[in-house]
């Protein structure tokens, strides 16, 4: 709970601001994760493109192995996204895992957090499995080729926007701190003069 503030009183008792209801919205993070998944699915890279990319530059034997890894990746994605979701959501999750692990050799804190922020709680074995699948795929294709592929296909890595507002503004993190006139006298208690003039 936030401490009592002047601006809180002004919001409650004056008529100059909009009355906002700040009661806690349940599941707002869950809703947000769904929205992020929806936005991610629109970002350019598709599962078909990944499948095509993983098979086009390889001989037959390697193609079979790659196909097996891609299947395993989809399975791991299914475990992460949840079984109640359709094929589209599973493929989108697999794309996310492919992007997340394409330059990683293990599931670190950052990757765990990124997956959780997209899908919520997930079985760690599925993350391990997907990391291992992606590592196998990348090993046979070459890291730089995969990197180039992701850079060109994903709009997230290739933003079409102008410069960010405020990028060059020098922002200060300084904040107001206590600036007392005097410290509490050492004893903490001043003897008050007691009047004996009854």
């Amino acid at each position: 709970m936030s401490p009592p503030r002047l601006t809180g009183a002004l919001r409650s008792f004056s008529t100059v601001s909009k009355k906002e209801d700040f009661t806690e919205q349940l599941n707002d993070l869950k809703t947000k994760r769904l929205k992020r998944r929806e936005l991610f699915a629109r970002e350019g890279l598709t599962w078909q493109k990944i499948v095509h990319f993983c098979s086009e530059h390889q001989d037959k034997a390697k193609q079979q192995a790659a196909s097996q890894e891609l299947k395993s990746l989809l399975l791991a994605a299914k475990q992460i996204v949840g079984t109640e979701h359709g094929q589209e959501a599973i493929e989108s999750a697999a794309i996310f895992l492919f992007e997340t692990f394409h330059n990683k050799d293990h599931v670190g804190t950052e990757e765990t957090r990124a997956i959780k922020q997209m899908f919520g709680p997930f079985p760690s074995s599925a993350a391990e499995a997907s990391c291992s699948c992606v590592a196998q795929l990348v090993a046979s294709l070459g890291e730089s080729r995969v990197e180039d592929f992701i850079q060109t296909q994903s709009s997230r890595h290739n933003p079409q926007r102008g410069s960010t507002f405020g990028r060059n503004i020098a922002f200060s993190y300084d904040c107001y701190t206590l600036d007392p006139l005097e410290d509490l006298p050492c004893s903490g208690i001043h003897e008050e003069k007691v009047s004996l003039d009854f």
Partner: protein
Amino acid sequence: MACAQVPLDEQQVTEPGPLGKEQTLPALHPARKEERCFVPYKSPPEDGSPAEVEEFLERAKFITEDLEWLLALPHDKFWCQVVFDESLQRCLDSYLHLAPRGLDLSALPSSPAVADMQRSVHRTVFLTFLRMATHKESKDNFITPAVFGEIIYDNFLFDIPKILDLCVLFGKGNSQLLHKMIENIFTQQPSYYSDLDETVPTVLQVFDTILDKCGLYCEGATAMEPMKLSAHKQPTAMTMSQQELVDLILYLCDSTTTIHAFLDIFPAACSGFHSNGFLSRLTSFYETAVPDLEKALRKRNFDDKGLQEDLWKRLSHSCRKMVETAHLLLHHTCLQPILEGGENMLAFAEELLSHFTSFLTEKRFLTDYDEQFPIADDVSLLQQALPVIDETRTSYLLQGVESAWDSVGRQKPQ
């Protein structure tokens, strides 16, 4: 993309509609807003169980990511989002409400990761407000000033409590930028001056509430209404619960810091405060409340001596801010116009002297004020600017100041 050299509020854009068919719309139109679903901010967990820390980090990451996306949007898209996305407004409002102030009891985040994330949110929120306060980003990207004034006012993008929050959260190191932002907001939408005028009585009510909670006679609040028969049963600073006393001091500390930050960053607001009799209410509040609260902090039995020390510092800090606020008000409404010269110098001098004279009865306030801002210095300035000032009057005033020091039993610093 909207066309150049025409203000955003007059631009039209032709884009594919939801069914793929091209449609022409005003550049500022709700249909152009993107469904982003901004999440509201929550303050960092105090003791930080791992789950709470994780939730904070996730939420803060979403906010930073979304605000960075917003700041990278082209001018027209940015404004569509700002005006029509209620989730964005809730996110920004929740930050102003709940972001920890530097003066909060537990202002320090529990872990470096939390501190880093908090800093990221802090910066992106400020930049978002800065962009919202800018009606002209470049020669191609601008909004007609009057329309900008209407947009920010009618949609409550800024209001007086928000402006005060911005000052206390960001003012310490970004005062120049904040000054420009607030000046632009008030210039393009003068209704904010009326809102400020309406707000001052509520600010004064905060002081009355504190007096009331301390069971102290409060002229401003009670003169208009009969005193309740149960009034004598009201707790005082000595008898109220320790938590109530803590809350009261925190409230006072926050209020005085916020008011001072705002007036310091935007001195044009001083006249609004001044014309509502803020100065005399502030000084009488100081005179009544400060000794009472000091006594309670000294005399009450605190198990936690650290808390007692901390509350004392907060009360002392509040005193400094009240004294500095009084000085800001006098400086900007009386002294500055005298020093600048002008037609009404004598009237301003008269007003300044009359304020100083009124301080003579508020001895505790007077000595604290005189210690920080020696009245003799201002009187000397006044005499140089206006030699016609009545010397008898100034001598009486300065003698009054001296005797105030004697009567409170303090030694005036040399």
